[in-house]
């Protein structure tokens, strides 16, 4: 992707326009938002601010139309042919908890193995831990290698009798891309249901959810250029129809009596109460934006940046990249630098207007496994440019001055 394209994209992001000096390298935590996303929210509030689905006036009708159109946009982005199978949630965490409380309660029985990987974010670990405790199920672990790739040699053993396999598409710590299709294929062959945590996948990689082989896919809007408070759960129709609802209340019902009720059809059965209407419209606009750029172009741009970063930073004395080979690498660059503690690095880089993250990245068990208390992580998105990497390299060297004579 040429510099010209990069720059024109950057001007779509008001925060970068307002702070041209800023180098934002924390998109794995949350991404910046393009103008069209903010505009989708603003125009809802200023032009057709009404509740949806039940209104008999035009403004409410228009809000409802935009709400359902946004669902179509995100369905298109992930390659889902049936928008009714795309459930709005408030984020990845909410989507995974939805599955744990509904499908999980119904299908995980005492003694059932649940297979996770050692890479999982707390949001794709703690809900299963809790479910396992409630249902007396057992957790099994696909082990990560030190570079964030997964050890699959003993996979068939782990899958024996497994009811559920839940794993991340892309590690938020290492940026390592899991072999999704292989794991899904082998898991389903073993009779397991598969949940894919796509929080770090959908924003970076082309997605054809129906071909990946998973049964559930969860992701967040705020990491894919959309607003906070949005997310989605995708699943197959048979599964969604067989599941009990999660939250109960308005909109998810069909008929209500004092002692019982019947539930609404998909997708509404899982969308109780007034949803995050403005947020949903923003997430739809984010999907449209990504579709417009093209996810293959997003990936190509990211690969270019990753290649450059691995070269440029890799040549710094004392820089150690924690991560997989380039072709399995997406989004996040974790590293250690000259023994400087990640917090100290983050503070020193912040002084140079560079935002990186430091710590356990909501992956404490992974940190224990690799024997670290945390890493420094720079993570990328389509608005980053090579100059951001240059700035990072210079700032790292400057940071090293502080600890010269102390650590090295």
């Amino acid at each position, binding site marked *: 992707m040429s510099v010209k394209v990069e720059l024109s994209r950057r001007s779509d992001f008001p925060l970068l326009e307002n702070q041209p000096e800023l180098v934002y390298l924390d998109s794995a935590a949350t991404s910046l938002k393009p103008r069209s996303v903010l505009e989708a929210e603003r125009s809802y509030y200023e032009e057709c601010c009404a509740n949806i689905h039940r209104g008999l006036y035009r403004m409410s009708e228009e809000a409802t139309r935009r709400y359902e159109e946004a669902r179509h946009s995100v369905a298109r982005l992930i390659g889902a042919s049936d928008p009714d199978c795309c459930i709005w949630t408030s984020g990845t965490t909410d989507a995974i908890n939805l599955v744990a409380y509904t499908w999980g309660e119904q299908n995980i029985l005492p003694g059932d193995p649940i297979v996770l990987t050692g890479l999982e974010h707390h949001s794709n670990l703690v809900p299963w831990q809790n479910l396992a405790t409630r249902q007396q199920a057992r957790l099994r672990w696909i082990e990560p290698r030190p570079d964030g790739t997964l050890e699959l040699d003993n996979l068939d053993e782990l899958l024996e009798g497994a009811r559920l396999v839940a794993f991340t598409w892309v590690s938020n710590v290492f940026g390592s891309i899991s072999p999704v299709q292989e794991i899904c294929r082998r898991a389903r062959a073993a009779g397991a249901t598969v949940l894919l945590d796509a929080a770090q996948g959908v924003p970076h990689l082309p997605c054809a959810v129906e071909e990946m082989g998973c049964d559930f896919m969860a992701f967040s809007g705020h990491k894919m250029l959309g607003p906070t408070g949005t997310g989605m759960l995708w699943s197959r129709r048979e599964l969604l129809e067989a599941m009990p609802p999660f939250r109960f209340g308005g909109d998810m019902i069909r008929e209500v009596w004092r002692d019982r009720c019947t539930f609404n059809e998909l997708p509404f059965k899982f969308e109780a109460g007034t949803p995050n209407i403005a947020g949903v419209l923003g997430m739809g606009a984010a999907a449209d934006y990504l579709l417009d750029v093209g996810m293959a172009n997003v990936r190509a741009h990211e690969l270019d940046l990753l290649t450059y970063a691995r070269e440029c930073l890799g040549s710094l004395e004392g820089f150690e990249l924690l991560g997989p080979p380039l072709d399995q690498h997406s989004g996040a660059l974790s590293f250690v630098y000259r023994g400087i503690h990640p*917090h100290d690095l983050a503070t020193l880089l912040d002084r140079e207007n560079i935002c990186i993250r430091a710590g356990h990245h909501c992956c404490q068990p992974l940190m224990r496994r690799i024997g670290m*208390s945390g890493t420094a992580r720079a993570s990328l998105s389509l608005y980053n440019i090579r100059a951001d990497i240059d700035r990072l390299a210079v700032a790292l060297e400057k940071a090293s001055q502080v*600890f010269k004579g*102390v650590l090295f």
Partner: protein
Amino acid sequence: MISDDLYREIILEHYAHPRCKGKLEAPTFRQDGVNPTCGDAVTVELDVKDNRVVRAAFEGVGCSISLASASMLTSLIEGKTLDEVRELAATFKKRMLNRNDAEPCPEQLGELEALDGVRQYPVRVKCALLAWNTLLGALEEAL
């Protein structure tokens, strides 16, 4: 080494050469502390005789600020009565949490004054306080 509002020489000095690092044989009090936000962890141990800290030690993993603060803490409290230690901790916490306090640092805090610069970095204040909050946890048992 360059001069720096946050990373003062004395902090880096403690970080590089911590005092009182290690374990006590049979500590009177022992307390673990973690900062869940970032994963920093510290253990504080005290030998107490007649309401006085005879020896103090710490172990832990963390950034320069949290480890330097732990090192200063343990070296400062040796020899002090528990009441004096509590007062010192209270004074230090108050100082750290008041970003806009323009007063000179209370003399009592001694070389802890070097941590004054941390107040301008609110998220790092937690690092500076980790060992102290852990100490206060240990002292609660002493009541």
